[in-house]
Structures are given as structure tokens and as C-alpha cells.
């Protein structure tokens, strides 16, 4: 395959005139990328795997001592870590479900001829173009119990969104939903507009009601692309850090990546945090794998 593609370099092209072979051009493009990936991704990945089996602390000069699986054993037995995972799971479920409902719902509303459709779509996409930290900061202001516009608009007095330990996680998830629903909307809109109109007409003729049409035609046809949106959002929500970190410092909003950050850069338990990072990596891979399996099944049908 590859050789066939490469053999087609036009002998009269400028690259050929300069005496560059196909191989040289390929290397020119590929080697910097590969070098970058190796230095900044692959090397730290492997290096940290090594550290995860040691008691290394980056803050001390003491040499790393090999401790085998002790870090992993300790982490997986730590009830606090598990509570971090539970918080993360709760957060992922709330925010992904919320994003899919809002995003898909808005996409359904937009999937018709309405005036200013393009403008409305663009405006709706704005939240996801902002920086996470900025979003966190201004939502902190919006949520403020004293002068926040949310309490004012909802007439909630001095309700403490972010200081209330039971509410804080939901408050963070709401911001995430606000920010990332447009992403789900965008993908859903692409999926919805790809459903041929004549199918809806055929269904109308076949006397299918709106719900029946939705579940038998719309949803199955949009499912693959919606699934991709869900995969992306789950992965992102699982490793969310900035929003939760900026918005709230409650123990109830301590998602796993905040825990990891604290472990690595406040407590300087470098070896331990590498192990935790690996546990997270494996979990994200596992979840993604389940989704991808499901996605393939949906596509096959």
C-alpha cells in the first residue's frame, strides 16, 4: 500500500527537481512529529511507569527505591482514593448525561428550517471555545451567594452553590454541561441532518407516531455519531481538573485528577502519584474500550 502511494511522486514536481526522494519527503514530515511524541509523550509515559514501582519523591535527593507493587496495593486499599473515584464517577455520569440530553435536545430543535439558524448555531458554540479556567472563574462569580446573578435570577437568596458540600459537585457539573453541550449538539446536528428526509416521509405514510419515528429511525441513525460524542465527553470528564479545581475546593468535589495533582505536587509523592496516574489511564482505556465495542456494534446493525 504505502510503497504504491509513494511511487507516484511526479518526476516533474518541484520536490523531485530538488533531488528529494519520496523517502526523504516522508522523513521530513514524519520524523519531527515522532521525535516530539517520543520526547514529550512516550518517554514520560514509560519513565513514570518505572517510577510507579518506586518510592521516589521529586522534592528530595534520596535515590528512588524499588518497592514493587506496594504503591498500587496501597492506593487500591485506600478508602479515600476510592471516594475520589466515586466522586469522579458521579461527576462523569451527571455531566455526560446532562450534555447528551441538552446537546441532543438543542440539536433536535435546530434540525429544521428556522430563521438565523447559522447565527444561532454559532452563538451556541461559543461556550466550548472558551478556556476552562476562564469559564471556571466567571461561573464562580455567577454562583456567588452575595452578588451572583444566578441566585438573583432564581430568587434563591444567599444559596451557597459552591460551599454547600452536597451541591458543589452538581454546580461544577452544571458548568461542564453548559460548556460542553454545544459539542454534543454539533455532532448530533451532523448526525441528524444526515438522516434522509424521505425516511421521515415514509414513516409518516406508514402511520408511525413521533415517538415511534424517533426511536425507530432517528435514534438508530444518529447513534454512531452520538456515541463518538459520548466517548469524547466521558474521557474528558473523567480526567477533568481545571473546572473543579478553579470552582471549588470542597472534599466532595475532589475528583481523581485533583487528588492526583495534590499527591504529586503538594505532597510530592511522585512514585505513588505515578501509580495513581497509571490506574487512571487503565480505567479510561477500559471505559473507552467498552464504548468502542458498543460503537462498532451500533455501526454494524
Amino acid at each position, binding site marked *: 500500500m504505502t510503497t504504491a502511494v509513494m511511487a507516484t511522486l511526479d518526476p516533474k514536481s518541484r520536490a523531485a527537481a530538488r533531488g528529494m526522494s519520496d523517502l526523504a519527503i516522508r522523513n521530513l514530515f514524519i520524523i519531527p512529529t515522532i521525535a516530539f511524541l517520543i520526547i514529550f509523550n512516550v518517554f514520560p509515559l514509560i519513565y513514570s511507569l518505572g517510577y510507579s514501582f518506586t518510592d521516589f519523591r521529586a522534592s528530595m535527593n534520596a535515590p528512588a527505591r524499588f518497592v514493587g507493587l506496594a504503591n498500587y496495593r496501597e492506593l487500591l486499599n485506600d478508602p479515600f482514593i476510592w471516594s475520589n473515584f466515586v466522586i469522579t464517577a458521579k461527576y462523569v455520569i451527571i455531566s455526560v448525561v446532562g450534555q447528551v440530553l441538552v446537546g441532543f435536545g438543542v440539536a433536535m430543535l435546530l434540525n429544521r428550517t428556522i430563521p438565523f439558524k447559522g447565527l444561532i448555531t454559532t452563538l451556541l458554540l461559543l461556550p466550548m471555545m472558551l478556556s476552562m479556567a476562564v469559564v471556571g472563574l466567571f461561573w464562580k462569580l455567577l454562583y456567588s451567594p452575595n452578588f451572583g446573578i444566578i441566585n438573583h435570577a432564581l430568587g434563591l437568596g444567599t444559596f451557597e452553590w459552591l460551599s454547600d458540600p452536597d451541591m458543589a459537585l452538581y454546580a461544577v457539573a452544571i458548568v461542564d454541561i453548559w460548556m460542553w453541550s454545544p459539542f454534543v449538539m454539533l455532532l448530533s446536528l451532523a448526525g441528524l441532518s444526515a438522516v434522509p428526509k424521505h425516511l421521515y416521509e415514509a414513516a*409518516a*405514510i*406508514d*402511520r*408511525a407516531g413521533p415517538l415511534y419515528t424517533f426511536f425507530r429511525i432517528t435514534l438508530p441513525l444518529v447513534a454512531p455519531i452520538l456515541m463518538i460524542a459520548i466517548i469524547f465527553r466521558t474521557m474528558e470528564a473523567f480526567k477533568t481538573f481545571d473546572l473543579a479545581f478553579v470552582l471549588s475546593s470542597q472534599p466532595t468535589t475532589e475528583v481523581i485528577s485533583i487528588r492526583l495533582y495534590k499527591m504529586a505536587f503538594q505532597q510530592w509523592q511522585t512514585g505513588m502519584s505515578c501509580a495513581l496516574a497509571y490506574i487512571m489511564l487503565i480505567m479510561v482505556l477500559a471505559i473507552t474500550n467498552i464504548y468502542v465495542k458498543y460503537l462498532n456494534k451500533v455501526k454494524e446493525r
Partner: protein
Amino acid sequence: MAHIQLRNITKKFGEHTALRGLDLEIADGEFFVLLGQTGAGKTTTLRLIAGLEKPTEGQIFIDGVDVGDWGAAERDVALVLQQYSLYPRYTVRENLEFPLKPKLRRVEPAEIKERVARAARTLRIEHLLDRKTDRLSGGEMQRVSIGRAIVRKPRVFLMDEPLSALDAKLREALRTELKNLQMTLGATFLFVTHDQIEAMSMGDKIGVLDRGRLVQTGTPQEIYNNPRNTFVARSVGSPPMNLVEGRLVGGRAVVAPGNFELPLNGQVASAAEGRPLIFGIRPEDIFVEPGAPIAAMIHDVENHGVEKILTLVAGEATLRATVPARMNVAVDETVSFAWNPEKVLLFDSASGLSLRHAG
């Protein structure tokens, strides 16, 4: 089964008028073919009857009831489209069951099974029932979409060029099948096509549409033998009717550009005398034989096996004639021809209307 009537239907899409003042009546159990070119308003007519579009003006009656405010579901019609519109990701069986499953219908599972089996048997797709729709050939897909229409026992079958995406052989086979199906079911069919052969071979009645107007309705014979105007004359028949300009002088046709003269039968209205006319004659009513009065040159010969189609040039007039395949003719040869004076049609040159219809 149903009787359909459209009364004074006008449909506009913005500035564009798709249908103007359309009146149409389809009798119960009739196979009605709507013939017209692309953009003539055939599909619009179907969609109006199906309830997918609302007329700008006029009324639609099904079995004498004005269905103007009814949605597609209430009208109980079946629509088969050119692009099949099978539900993807489902098997053939699930596609056939689809219209029976909605709660609105309340069909018993046993009956669903029976109806699907019967439809599959009728259309000979039993072996495909458990196959996914994307693994079907074009002809099979179209059968399934017809099957989806017949499981429902609708009041009317609407078909929008269902055969035009198929290859010629399959088209021919399905044409016969559809006609048989309609006769077996005794159902009312409204079939839309731009193919005059489909119209002629399948229709009990044909309606010819020209740019949103219904020009003529009638049996295939009527449409063929007695077209209302030159448009209809050109629309049916292959090769189409010869239309030559000329005048009527003393009961004889004088064809202008070539200046040849041929007799007409006696009953032509003498009022037409001297007026610019168009004479219409079917290719099979032109006789090429030795000793015939008019000489012409053979411009082209098309051999169709059972017959040959000659393109004759007499003066400046070009005429097409069908002759038996045995006849030995060659391009550039000079032959002589005559026409069947009984069969010549006279059209008014300005309006294109047939004089028989006008008066």
C-alpha cells in the same frame, strides 16, 4: 380501496407554481398513470394526495371525503418512492413489519406474521426476509418497499417512479409484476412516471401533465390515437408521432416546407381550410411502397429487430416511418410513401390543439 378526486388544485412553492387548476379523478380499483416530464408536477400531485404537502388552493377527496386537513397517517395511503426509502439497519422482515407495529394500528402479532409472509410470497422475497436491507440489489429493495406498502392494505397505492432506478430488464419484469399485483389486489393505484412505455403498458387510464396542467386523461388507446394537442402527441409513442406543418387545400393536406400533397379522409371540417395547421401521423401509418405518390430520401435506418424505423426526408419535412424488418432499404436510397388518410390528425398551428377536440 378508494376513489380519489382532486378539484381545482393549485400548488405553489414560493414563486414557482408547480400545479395549476388541476382536476383529476381516479376511479376505485383503477390503475392510473400520471405521465409527464421532470418538473411537470407529477411528484407534487402524489405528495399532495399522500398528505406530505398541502395544496395552495383546491380540495382533495378520498372516497368523497375532503381530506384537506388530514395528515399523512390518517389518509391511509401507501407511497413507494424512487429511492426505495427502506429503513436502514433493519432486516427486510423488520422493514415489512414497520408499518404494522405502531400502536395506532393495533395489529395482532400473529396477523403481522401472516401479512408479512403473504406480502413476501407475493413479491417473491421470502428468502430475503432475514437479510439486512443494505445487502439487497436495487430490484430487491424496490420489491421490499412495495412489500411495505402492501402489508398495510392501504386505500390507495401511490408510486413515484418506482422503476426508474432499475435496469431495463428488471424494469420490464417488475412492470408486469406490478400490473398483476394491482389486478390481484383490486387496489387503486396512482403511478407516476416519465416513461411513456410504462404508462402505455400499465395504465387503465393515463393522465398527461404538462408544466403543472393536466392536458388530457383517457385510456392508453385514446391518448395514443386521439391526442388532445401536439404535446400529448409527442409524449406517447416511440418513435413519436410525426408532426408536419401545412395547410388544408380542397380537402387535401399540403405540407408547407416540402410542398407535398396527400389526401385526407372526407370528414375534416372545412372550417380548417386555408388555416396554418399541423398534421400528425403515427410512424406506423406511413406506408413505404413502390408507386406511392411522394418521393423521399432515406436519411437514417434504425433496425429494431421486429421492425425498422426509417427517417425520411421529403423536401424539408422529416418523417419517421416504421416498416417491416424484412424490407430492404439503405441510407440515401430514394423511396416513395403515402399515409393512411383515416389516421391523420389535424392540430391548430397556433394553439397546438387537436381540431377533433376543439370542435
